[in-house]
């Protein structure tokens, strides 16, 4: 049986990984509310990233359900269950498989409330491992980008254990469908690569806390330039920003945390201060949230800018398997650093 540090004892809380924080959040919410249950493929043994490890022992097979490989079917089923008052959480092995349930999400899940004139609500959380992790193009989608323009959905992309726990609990209590997209390199599940930065493992308070959806967070204050990055890219960006700090450049690093709703105001406030903006995202350069943010700033705060808005993202390509190529197309610290320095020269 797979093993992992399932529930750290309250007394001696060490630092948690993101998946440990998430699992703790899930467990707390399932204890709090009988209506919450989780379903997905192979979640009885923990699921792909061990999100549900050990849960069946506490909550039983009724609330921790192994599904057939029928994503459209069980997403639709969760929608129906949510309409009738349950609060399902769907664990996707990889977020990439959600495209086989796409219609259920954008035509039904996101719209039924509106079309019905507000008669129903669909409290439903999707736990979605996102991004590239050395498995080739079909397992490397930045799923958040594809859903970014769909009204009726909320999208969360936490980057730290602390945020993950607080945001996940809010997502479970939210009465809307929430896509909870965690980068595959951020879970820190056993046997998986974990992105390294000062915040990829972290202290998570034992006392309950919630983080509201839709509030960005300044992960590092700064005055010379604003950098907005989420998920895995936040960690790379922070590493770069910390290095640059030593070189006398003060980068303010903003983590949007939620892509929908997006806390544009906090970015505007930062840009008013710094006059310079770089946006970093892992998804393909075309059509991601970064483009929207750039457009919003160009529409609402262009007067505060002293330079172009630069974006660091993956070029418009499927993700290659070859590690050499994958590394070449996905933004890395060198590219982030270079872009910041270039922008400071403009």
């Amino acid at each position: 049986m797979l093993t992992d540090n399932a529930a750290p004892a309250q007394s001696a809380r060490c630092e948690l990984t993101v998946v440990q924080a998430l699992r703790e959040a899930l467990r707390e919410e399932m204890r709090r509310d009988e209506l919450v249950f989780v379903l997905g493929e192979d979640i009885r043994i923990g699921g792909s990233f061990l999100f549900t490890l050990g849960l069946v022992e506490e909550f039983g097979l009724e609330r921790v359900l192994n599904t057939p490989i029928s994503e459209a079917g069980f997403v639709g089923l969760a929608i129906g269950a949510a309409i009738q008052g349950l609060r399902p959480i769907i664990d996707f092995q990889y977020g990439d498989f959600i495209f086989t349930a796409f219609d259920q999400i954008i035509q039904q899940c996101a719209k039924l409330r509106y079309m019905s004139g507000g008669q129903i609500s669909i409290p439903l959380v999707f736990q979605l491992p996102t991004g590239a992790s050395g498995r080739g193009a079909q397992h490397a989608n930045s799923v958040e980008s594809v859903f970014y323009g769909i009204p009726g959905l909320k999208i969360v992309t936490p980057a730290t254990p602390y945020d993950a726990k607080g945001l996940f609990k809010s997502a479970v209590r939210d009465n809307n469908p929430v896509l909870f997209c965690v980068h595959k390199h951020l879970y820190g599940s056993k046997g998986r690569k974990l992105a390294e930065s000062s915040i990829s493992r972290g202290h998570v308070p034992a006392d309950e806390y919630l983080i509201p959806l839709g509030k960005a967070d300044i992960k590092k204050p700064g005055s010379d330039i604003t950098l907005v990055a989420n998920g895995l890219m936040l960690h790379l960006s922070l590493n770069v920003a910390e290095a640059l700090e030593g070189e006398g450049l003060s980068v303010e690093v903003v983590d949007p945390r939620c892509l929908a709703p997006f806390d544009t105001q906090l970015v505007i406030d930062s840009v008013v201060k710094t006059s310079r903006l770089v946006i970093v995202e892992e998804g393909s350069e075309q059509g991601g949230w970064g483009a929207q943010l750039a457009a919003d700033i160009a529409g609402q705060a262009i007067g505060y800018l002293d330079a172009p808005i630069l974006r660091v993202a993956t070029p418009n390509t499927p993700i290659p398997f070859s590690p050499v190529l994958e590394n070449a197309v996905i933004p890395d610290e060198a590219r982030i650093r270079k872009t910041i320095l270039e922008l400071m020269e403009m």
Partner: protein
Amino acid sequence: MQSLSIQLPQVPDIASLDAYDADLLRDLYRRMVLIRQFELKVNDLFLQGIMPGTIHLSLGQEASVVGACLALEADDVITLTHRGHGQALAKGVSAAALMAELFGKETGCCRGRGGSLHVGDMAVGALPAIAIVGASSPIAAGMAFAFKRQATGQVALNFFGEGAANKGDWHEALNLAAVWKLPVIFLCENNLYGVSTHITEVMAIEFVAERASAYGMPGSTIYGNDPIIVYEAVKTAVERARAGGGPTLIECLTYRRGGHKRDDPGTYRPQEEMEAWFKTDPLPAFRARLLADARISLCEIEALEASVATTIDAAVNFALDSDAPAIESALEHIYAD
């Protein structure tokens, strides 16, 4: 049961109505007449150019939807299709609120946000319709899942056309429902056509219900133009579902009187087929049976028909008199609080 065929209608021997409560018979007929008159009126309003949007009428399929819905309790739920007016009325959605919805009025059953393709009213157990073919089947299974989990004793009934049986969502839903023994009835209104395409062009088997065995659930094909036959089949399935026996697939053979939607004359259908099926029109057939029953008089039937006509007129007036939604309300209900 007599053997059925997908080609021409085979009207089964008619059982006596004696065993049925007269109120049930009246209710079956009343709802069928309500749908018939509602749809004819909607067609009129359309031709007059008064009604917005697009419309898929259910004329001819009244017996299936009414027979099915009356086998349910008030708190059971149905999911509806793009051809949903009849399903809605059969389950008890108010004709006035339905009509107002078609006009996009604030008083509509979905506050005018849904329109003809998305009618429904949760208060009577009618989930606002899903117009994506096949997509409602997993959702119906999900509602049934909630009923089972919470042991409410309710069931869900999923309406779909035979065309939907070729969608992946439908397949996944039937399998899930069977594996988890969910209290759901999959009710196929097989009217032989998906738009202009005959079932024999899109399936290499004769009946949709033959697919039930692929999921390990019972399935049956029945004559769908008699409300009693449908009522009985659904009743059995409902009892099975409530008793924890899981899902059932029921296929009702029926026929739409008109085209697929308003701008479709339906002329791709062979003359012989149309004539044969039109002769099985469920309304006159059931009316004749009722009249043969000692308990129900012509006078009573005529009164019932007249009262439905009044209801429809009132619905139209209600709809026309109602206000359109306020523009400022356009962005309400996107998110729940």
